[in-house]
């Protein structure tokens, strides 16, 4: 197990608690530090308290949807890498995210190892 310092500071926002926790656990195996919340609003609040390297947000959330939440976070934290997780790439919300430009779209199912490597690169500054 690698130490926390070589990993990134990550936030996972997904209304499916089990999924969020399982992904967090998998990413922690690679040394990342991961927080989880279950709603867009909580995500915005958390991002306000902590400066995350990257945020992984599910597209379908109760209340404010994933895209709008990320856009809100980007206004206050423009440096944060924002990833939108969607189960279906044809999602119209995902299309909006792509149009917005600043959000990258990840299609579920995610490969945790692949994702971990990608996120590690951010920390290293290769983003």
């Amino acid at each position, binding site marked *: 197990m690698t130490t926390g310092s070589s990993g990134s500071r990550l936030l996972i926002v997904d209304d499916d608690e*089990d*999924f969020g926790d*399982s*992904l967090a656990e*998998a990413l922690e195996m690679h040394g990342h530090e991961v927080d989880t919340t279950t709603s867009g609003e909580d995500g915005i609040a958390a991002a306000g308290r902590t400066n995350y390297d990257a945020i992984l947000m599910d597209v379908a959330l109760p209340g404010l949807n994933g895209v709008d939440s990320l856009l809100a976070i980007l206004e206050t934290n423009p440096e944060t890498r924002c990833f939108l997780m969607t189960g279906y790439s044809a999602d119209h919300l995902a299309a909006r995210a792509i149009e917005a430009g600043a959000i990258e779209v990840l299609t579920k199912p*995610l490969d*945790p*190892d692949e994702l971990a490597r990608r996120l590690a690169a951010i920390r290293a500054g290769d983003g």
Partner: protein
Amino acid sequence: MRGFPKNQMALIASAICLAAAFFALDLALPLGVAGGVPYVALVLLGWWFDRPRYLVLLGAVATALTIAGYYFSAEGGIEWMVLANRALAFFAIWITVGLLVKAKSSENALRIAHSELEQRAEALRESEARYARAVSGTNDGLWDWDIRTGENYRSPRWEEIVGYGPGELEPVRQALIDLIHPDDRKRVLDAARAHLDERVPYDLEFRLRHKSGEYVWARSRGQAIWDAGGKPLRMAGSLTDITRRKRAEEQIQKLNETLERRVEERTSELRAAQDALLRKERLATLGQLTGTVAHELRNPLGTIANAINVIGHKCASAEPDLEKTLERAERSIKRCDTIVTELLDFARAKGLQREPTVVDAWLAGILEEQHIPEAVTVTRDFQADAAAVAFDRDELRRAVINLVDNACQAMIGREKLGDAGIGGELTLSTRMNGERVEIAVADSGPGIPAAVLPQVLEPLFSTKTFGTGLGLPTVQQIMEAHGGGLEITSREHCGTKVVLWLPLEQLREAGVSV
């Protein structure tokens, strides 16, 4: 008819004159010998009166005058001779009256009978005229059969119906029977017998042979008369030409049948269309359901995958044997996910984003990107020249890759592509075929048995050991959404070829340049 009042007056006047004249004569003659006889002349005058009673009246007057003459005549003459004379006159008068009365009565009776006869004759003429009018109006033939002699009268119109002129047919019953259609003969004879024996009404339709050789349809109605002992004497009736009506009936029947057939065809067409519509609706509902379910499955699958990943990491050093176990779990999760993807693909109705694309070049590009197992040799046969068609590249890409995967799997015989297996030949070809552009994917695999072939395009049909069987139906959906289609040819042991085609109108519509 005699006896107008004018004549009557003249006669009465003459009678009076004559009576006066005779009386005067009677008185003038002393002997009175001829006195009585002239009075008979008076009686004779009565013949011209119309009633016998006038004769009697005249007789009475003559008698009175005879008697009066005796008393008023001049004296002279032999008494007994005078009396005898008067008596004889008396006798003569009344004999004459009697004879004339009788004659008059006979004459009257004759006259009455004559006028009655005249009336009857008139009525008969009238009746015949009416009858003739009626007959000419109905245009029916008439027949009259004398049962005892076998003679059979037929009116000219009757003979005309069967095309014969007067005298060409013998007026016997047998001539009629010979003309009846052989199939109808027994029926006609039975009906006649039934009428004659049991008084069953005679009214039936049958065919008669026209002189031309063809058959006409006729309706014959008739009535017999029987003698006191119940033996039939004559039978007569009418014959109507109903050929036209029969033909019309046949036509109506045919039309009816045609109509019924058309209605049946249309009904089954409608039913088929209805069934198709119902299936589509059901599939659409199913699609929506599967879409939702698939979506919901994605997350739990993801969680499991993540958990297994973590377990793998945690146990990597401690329990190396767990590797295979976890690999199996991961593979299964991937399978589940593939199914979810297939379901979602099938369920969604995505709007197409058509872009004019040069088919050959685009296809070549896909082949480059796609991983083909080593055991499979790929042959490219691109003959669509520089043809470009407007289609949704993502969708067509999915379609082609689906076919390529199917082909490789069929040939390799394994789920996991990339392993060396039996191997085979994959041929990708393109060509222009009339109004279509065709992309064909052919393999040298085991092929699809003829019995199974019709089902491969049914959603949820699958002979693979896993999978939802939504691949081909989804591909078909994609092609049909483009206004094109999909054709499969396959023979067992000889491989399968799937042709995707797109209509070339797209080309003109899109105003494409290469």
